[in-house]
């Protein structure tokens, strides 16, 4: 039996906060910049108290200008700092699109390694919080297409800490997505002390042999719940939390498919052109002769965003029951 390392119970907000705190403590090159990260301590109170401890030079309240939040962080990174830029809500990231896609992701490539861009862009995303059109979106697919960028979306406190530490220490730009519905909802044990989880490694959160469910973010938790319910019906479902969206952990997905022969992909971002499309295509290319059922995707609908009204948001989001129903169908197929 493994000796249990000392742990602390944290929710996801606390996990992000603790990791940032440790990074700021450990390395004076680390700078946090974004809107309201100073005195307010970020709108979710993630950086509360940081400005008092680390000073306004390291906890930088920026003007309301997302392009330059990222752009200035790119410059800092090129000059040897370790900036952690925050976009207050993922919905506000669009003005920074050029800086992320056109600049940060291409710095190493265009200078052939002369300059690098070790940068973390943190942003809360996702719905289920009555955030309406501009505080609910998932943005990962927009950036998924971009080589040079890494995208991480862990949703367990221990994964957040390990992956955020990896992101901060990564020599390349990392988009770090935090599902805000899970911020205070999800709690768990987090090992104390510094540790990393490699970017690009998925995690089998639940083992099973009749169906592979691939998800990330809030829906991982619902998928686990659905799988647990179906266990009572004798169904054995494997749930993979991608944790890292890019690079994709092909190995873990394929290994699972070869065992279960069936794949369900669940994500909140809309289906068309989404992360699931890439996974489905990859599996179809590489594991066609292992498939015993059509690949299924349970994703957000093809609409611009979820509405503010409860029924509109509810209609957008996928319930645990729906997941369970689809899982059941696939297992029985």
């Amino acid at each position: 039996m493994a000796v249990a390392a000392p742990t602390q119970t944290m929710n996801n907000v606390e996990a992000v906060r603790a990791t940032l705190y440790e990074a700021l403590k450990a390395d004076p090159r680390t700078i946090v910049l974004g809107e309201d990260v100073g005195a307010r301590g970020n709108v979710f109170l993630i950086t509360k108290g940081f400005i008092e401890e680390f000073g306004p030079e390291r906890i930088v309240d920026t003007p309301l200008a997302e392009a330059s939040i990222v752009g200035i962080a790119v410059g800092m990174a090129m000059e040897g700092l370790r900036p952690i830029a925050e976009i207050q809500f993922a919905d506000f990231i669009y003005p920074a699109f050029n800086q992320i896609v056109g600049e940060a992701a291409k710095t190493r490539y265009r200078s052939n390694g002369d300059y690098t861009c070790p940068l973390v862009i943190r942003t809360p995303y996702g719905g289920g919080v009555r955030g309406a059109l501009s505080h609910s979106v998932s943005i990962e697919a927009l950036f998924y297409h971009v080589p040079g960028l890494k995208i991480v979306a862990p949703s367990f406190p221990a994964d957040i800490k390990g992956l955020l530490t990896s992101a901060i220490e990564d020599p390349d730009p990392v988009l770090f997505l935090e599902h805000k519905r899970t911020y205070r909802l999800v709690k768990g044990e987090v090992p104390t002390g510094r540790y990393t989880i490699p970017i690009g490694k998925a995690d089998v959160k639940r083992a099973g042999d009749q169906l592979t469910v691939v998800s990330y973010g809030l829906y991982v938790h619902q998928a686990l719940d659905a799988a647990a319910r179906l266990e009572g019906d004798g169904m054995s479902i494997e749930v993979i939390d991608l944790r890292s969206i890019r690079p994709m952990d092909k190995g873990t997905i394929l290994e699972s498919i070869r065992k279960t022969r069936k794949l369900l992909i669940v994500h909140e971002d809309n289906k068309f052109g989404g992360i699931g499309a890439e996974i489905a295509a990859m599996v179809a290319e590489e594991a066609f002769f292992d498939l015993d059922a059509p690949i299924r995707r349970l994703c957000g609908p093809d609409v611009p965003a979820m509405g503010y009204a409860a029924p509109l948001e509810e209609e957008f989001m996928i319930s645990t029951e729906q997941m369970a129903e689809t899982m059941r169908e696939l297992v029985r197929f």
Partner: protein
Amino acid sequence: MAKAIESPSFERYGLDDDRLRWMLRNMHLQRTLDNRGFQLNRQGKIPFATGSEGHEGIHAGAAVAFSRGKDVLVPYYRDIGLCLGIGMDPLEALLSMFARGADRSGGRQFPNHFTSKAIGMLSISSIIAAHCPHAVGVAYAMKYRKETDRAVLCCFGDGATSEGEWHESVNFAAVHRLPIVFLCENNEWAISTPRERQMAIADVVQKAAGYGIPGVIVEGADPLAVYKTVKDALDRARSGGGPTLVEAKCYRFLSHTTDDDDRTYRSREEIEKHRHLDPVPRFERLLIECGIVTDEGIAEIKKEVLAQVNEVTDRAEAMPFPAPQELYTNVYEGTHEPWL
């Protein structure tokens, strides 16, 4: 030969004769390399070139104000003279034009998108003003590390001052009083769009007031005035005085690039009307009048520059292209599977 009497209007700002001749040489080198790019393009040897004719005075002046080994230049794609002036080897310009494997970007970048961490020259993209926040980030790092002998020189054209990222950058630098000089090389044209279609104000420096920083206009055809203005602004930046917006007025005598035909949007007469702003003959005249160079000396400089450009052209052309497999390197640190 002109008389060696100093003109009463001649202020050399402490620059000695050698330095002034070096500036003239830099201007000729820039112009010769510009021409070479257009020549190679018209010969079908390279797909694309960008000219900077008309900007030589700005580049020579700003280059002398730049503190090598300390300051950081965040140039834009028309800054070949400035890049040469702060220490870039002319061979680099040709390697870039020929897109050879030995080019610092490995033949990836368009010509005139130089990079050299070694000499403090930031890598840029072609996206207008996208480099301005990077310059501000570098300046922030300098201030954060209390490196009071360093500053950033961030260059761009007049068109860039319409971009949001430019405004955001100037604003942030102003708020934090960062050690940075924003040098606008206003050549009146953003490809085909004239300045009056770009902004409703006569001078770019008027924008400085909106951010609470000083704005200074300087005659771009006068490298000494540019030197003095940029030097003062950099000194001010280094001593904690914050950013300055310098608007160096000049004129773009060539098409935007080899792919552009400026006859479609401006007349030859208009160009000729601005010929008096050509910084090269003006600076030659000044140095001759002041007895710093002779006609023969200038001929010698031109000959020597041409020989150097010919030599680096031949050398660069003889070098190999990057291997096709180089397409796949430096996407991330370490290896990357491009066919995932």
